């Protein structure tokens, strides 16, 4: 078995060292006979960007869906700010979720709603009793962050893929989360737009001082964003380290990702 090299994040990659915000211990998840995660361990520290690399179907999406409570693991602990996600009641889970943003692979913008309604949705759902004035202000602020203020009254179907991704990002950021989970943020975008999105993610990351887990197999994206890279292979954390460390690894299985 290759070595699972768990290293403390180096001081240089971090703006400021934080406590671990996500601790995953001995996580198991299977769908029928298909075992996706078996004894997976991971720690994410404050203001750190962790990229999870892996083949399609390796269980990357499953991992982050378990973190946000969309999927229930078979076994194991997922501690987010000290709350064990699988054991939370729906109300408690909702409370934790306000601190976690999730950028879906397919954007998941509600196509029956305008951009404004899309952005208002999490605000109104999580923070009941918010005044319309405040909501409007936050919506515009979120759109300004991604530079798409003019799309306010448009429908999602009228926008391009890159614009939709930005809107989705704006919606993710509107609740000012402390952790953001990105599910393949650049998949399906042209390389130029993908780079724009990468830069935007990084910019907002710095602005809001968030920690994040990014799932990707786009190596450019990984290179740009990652403070630390985790290789998810055969249901376990196969390797861990900075981009450079893994790029220069001698392991055959690691190498094939960097070719």
């Amino acid at each position, binding site marked *: 078995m290759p070595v699972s090299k768990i290293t403390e994040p180096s001081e240089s990659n971090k703006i400021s060292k934080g406590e671990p915000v996500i601790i995953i211990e001995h996580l198991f998840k299977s769908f029928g006979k298909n075992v996706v995660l078996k004894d997976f361990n991971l720690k994410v520290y404050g203001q750190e960007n962790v990229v999870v690399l892996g083949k399609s179907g390796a269980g990357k999406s499953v991992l982050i*869906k378990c973190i*946000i409570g*969309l999927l229930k693991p078979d076994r194991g602990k997922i501690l987010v700010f000290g709350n064990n996600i699988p054991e939370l009641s*729906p109300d408690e889970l*909702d409370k934790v*979720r*306000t601190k*976690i943003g*999730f950028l*879906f*692979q*397919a*954007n*998941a*913008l*509600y*196509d*029956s709603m305008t951009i404004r309604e899309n952005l208002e*949705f*999490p605000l109104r*759902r*999580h923070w009941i009793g918010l005044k319309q004035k405040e909501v409007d202000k936050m919506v515009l602020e979120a759109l300004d962050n991604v530079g798409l203020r003019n799309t306010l009254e448009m429908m999602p179907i009228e926008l391009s893929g890159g614009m939709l991704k930005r809107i989705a990002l704006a919606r993710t950021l509107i609740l000012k989360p402390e952790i953001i989970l990105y599910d393949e943020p650049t998949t399906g975008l042209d390389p130029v737009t993908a780079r724009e999105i990468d830069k935007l993610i990084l910019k907002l990351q710095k602005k809001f001082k968030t920690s994040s887990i990014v799932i990707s197999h786009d190596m450019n994206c990984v290179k740009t964003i990652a403070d630390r890279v985790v290789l998810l292979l055969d249901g376990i954390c196969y390797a861990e380290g900075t981009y450079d460390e893994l790029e220069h690894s001698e392991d055959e299985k690691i190498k094939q990702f960097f070719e």
Partner: protein
Amino acid sequence: MALIQDIRDFFDETGSLTKFAGNFFTNGLKPRYEVKEVLAQSYSIGYKSLPLIGLTNFIMGLVLTMQLRPSLVKYGVESQLPVMVGIAIVREIGPVIAALIFAGKIGSSIGAELGSMKVTEQIDAMEVSGTNPYKYLVATRVLATTLMLPILTILGDGISLIGAYIGVNINSVTSLHLFFIQVFHSLTFSDLIPAIIKTFFFGFAVGMVGCYKGFNSVKGTRGVGISANSAVVLSSVLIFVIDLLVVQFTNLLGLN
């Protein structure tokens, strides 16, 4: 083996649908109430279905009258035509036609809408945004279909009776007043009330099956199509099954 697998699948599906429907009563009706969403759904499910259901019921009333006339003329009871048509419409034709059209229009649209929401992770997004998708999407739609179909049926019955009135007037002349007096004179509460009550069940079945199929849609555009299609098929079949059960039940209660 394939047969056994099919039977297993059937009961698996029945069980999970029942569980899904049971969820409506255990979770769906608890606060927080999505009043705004129920209203919005009621508008698009109820109000917007009226023209279609009105048209089909109108034609049904007209055609039924024209089809029944020859038999009644043969027995020399042509004057009973409004009575016959009135009872047929109020007891059976009106509710069932309305429910079937409703299943075709609403069942498929709910199946497709929730199916595509499922496929594009919008349902997950909703859950992440502090919203119980079952309450927000399913309960509201099921509530809307359950409450709107009876209203659509009543209005459809009325429109159907106007169609029947025109049908009666093609071959003879009857005043609208006499027609409606004849119809309502022959009707009793035991005709109207079970017929209206069963439409609540029809509406519930259409909404629930549409949501279930949408929620369990498999990935891809084909999955959405299958969801929409099977929602219509299953809810149409359920309408007839419920109709059968209701008629048995009303017989049992001696309401016929």
